C-alpha cells in the first residue's frame, strides 16, 4: 500500500520545539513539507513508498532525553514524537553528504544549488565525471526512476546495472527498450533532472535511455504530436466510448477549444454534444 487511505487519529508532534498537528502514521517529512519546515531531500516521492535512499532528510529524534538520527521520510508521526532538524550533528552529517553528492553528480545544478544553500560549495572527494554519460553526470542513483517505471507504470524498462562504483541506471544492454511507453514518469520523478527526453517529429526520444523511440499520436485538428501512441491506447481502453473517441483524435488544447465552442453553441441554442 502506497499511502494510508484512512488518516490515523490526530496526534501532536514537536519539530524544533514547536508543536504541530499530524495524523498518526503520517510520514514526518510530509508533515515538515506541509508546515514549511526546511528539510533537504532528494529521493522522497509522495506517490511511492518511502525508501530512505538519499539520507539527506536525516533528523534527530529525541526519546527519553536521548537523541538518535533517523531519516524523516521513514519516520512516522506518533503522539509525543519530538525531532530536531538543525542540530550541529545533523549539519555535519549533511555537509559530508553534500560533498559526496557533489562528487557523485558533479554536473547537477540541483545538487550544486542545494549544497550551496547549506554552505557547501566544494568537495574533497574525487569527482565522478564520465564522458558520454547518458545521464550527463547528474545521476545520484536514488532509484526513483527505476521504481516509478516498474511500480507505478508497470513498464520495467530501466533498472540498475552493475554494482558498487560501476552502478548505473539504463536499459538492458544499453539498447532501445521495447518495454518503454515513453510516458516520461522517470523524467518527472528525477530529483536532479538527469534524464533527457525530447519529442522529435512523430517520435518521442528517450535520449538517456539508449535513444529509445516511442511513436506519438497526432492531433487530427492541429496536427501536433501529443502523447505516446501505445500509452494512450492502453488508457483509452479504460474509458467510455464518447469520451474515448474525442480523446483519441484530439490533443488536449484542441479538445479544450472544441468543448468551449460547443458550450457557446449550446448557449445560443446550437448543438451540444457534452452533458
Amino acid at each position: 500500500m502506497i499511502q494510508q487511505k484512512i488518516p490515523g487519529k490526530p496526534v501532536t508532534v514537536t519539530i524544533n520545539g514547536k508543536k504541530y498537528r499530524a495524523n498518526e502514521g503520517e510520514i514526518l517529512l510530509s508533515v515538515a513539507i506541509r508546515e514549511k519546515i526546511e528539510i533537504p531531500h532528494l529521493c522522497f516521492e509522495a506517490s511511492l513508498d518511502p525508501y530512505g535512499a538519499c539520507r539527506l532528510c536525516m533528523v534527530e529524534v529525541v526519546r527519553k532525553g536521548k537523541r538518535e538520527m533517523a531519516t524523516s521520510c521513514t519516520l512516522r508521526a506518533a503522539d509525543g514524537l519530538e525531532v530536531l532538524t538543525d542540530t550541529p550533528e545533523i549539519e555535519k552529517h549533511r555537509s559530508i553528504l553534500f560533498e559526496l553528492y557533489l562528487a557523485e553528480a558533479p554536473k547537477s545544478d540541483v545538487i550544486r544549488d542545494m549544497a550551496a544553500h547549506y554552505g557547501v560549495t566544494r568537495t574533497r572527494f574525487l569527482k565522478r565525471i564520465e564522458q558520454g554519460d547518458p545521464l550527463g553526470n547528474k545521476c545520484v542513483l536514488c532509484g526513483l526512476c527505476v521504481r516509478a517505471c516498474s511500480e507505478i507504470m508497470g513498464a520495467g524498462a530501466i533498472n540498475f546495472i552493475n554494482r558498487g562504483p560501476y552502478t548505473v541506471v539504463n536499459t538492458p544492454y544499453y539498447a532501445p527498450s521495447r518495454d518503454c511507453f515513453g510516458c516520461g514518469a522517470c523524467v518527472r520523478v528525477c530529483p536532479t533532472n538527469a534524464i533527457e527526453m525530447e519529442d522529435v517529429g512523430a517520435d518521442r526520444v528517450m535520449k538517456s535511455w539508449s535513444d529509445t523511440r516511442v511513436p506519438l499520436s497526432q492531433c487530427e485538428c492541429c496536427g501536433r504530436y501529443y502523447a505516446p501512441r501505445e500509452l494512450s491506447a492502453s488508457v483509452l481502453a479504460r474509458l467510455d466510448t464518447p469520451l474515448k473517441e474525442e480523446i483519441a483524435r484530439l490533443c488536449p488544447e484542441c479538445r479544450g477549444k472544441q468543448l468551449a465552442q460547443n458550450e457557446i453553441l449550446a448557449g445560443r441554442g446550437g448543438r451540444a454534444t457534452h452533458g
Partner: protein
Amino acid sequence: MDERTLDAIIARHDAPAGRLLGILGEIQNQEGYVPRETLELLSEKLGVRLSQLYGLATFYSYFTLRPVGDHVITVCMGTACHVKGAVAILEALEGLLGIKSDVTDDGKLSVTTIDRKFTVEIARCFGACSMAPVLRIDGNLYGYATPEDLPVILGEYGWTP
C-alpha cells in the same frame, strides 16, 4: 542455448524463492556465459522484465555476459596475493597470451584471447592466502605461483609459445 534446454532448466526451478538466480546460474554453468538471446527468451518465458534479469546478471560477478575461451584463468587479486606479487603474475600472463587486460565499463576484468583459447579474469580472494599468490585454471588451483612457472602451467592447457 536452445529452447528445449532452457525449458528443462526452468522446469527444475519452480520454487519462487531464488528462482531467477538458480536459472541464471545453470545457464552460466552450461554455456560458460549468459547469452543475450537466452536472457531475452527467458524474459519472455517467465514474464519477467528483461531489465530485471539484466540487472541481476550484471550485479553478480558469478555471471558473465560475454563468451569466454576454452580455459578460464582466474588470478587472485586479494590482499595477500597482491602483496605476494599477483600484479607480476597478471602482467606475465598478458605477455604470454598477447592480451591487454583492462577494467570494462561494468567493472569486471575479463579478457579473452583472439583464438578463444584462454580467458583471463581476476578474483578478489580465493581464501587460499597461505599459498599466495594463487591462480586458478578451470577449477585447478596453483599456489606459490611465479611468472617463471606460467609457461609450464599454461602448457598443460595446450598453450605453445
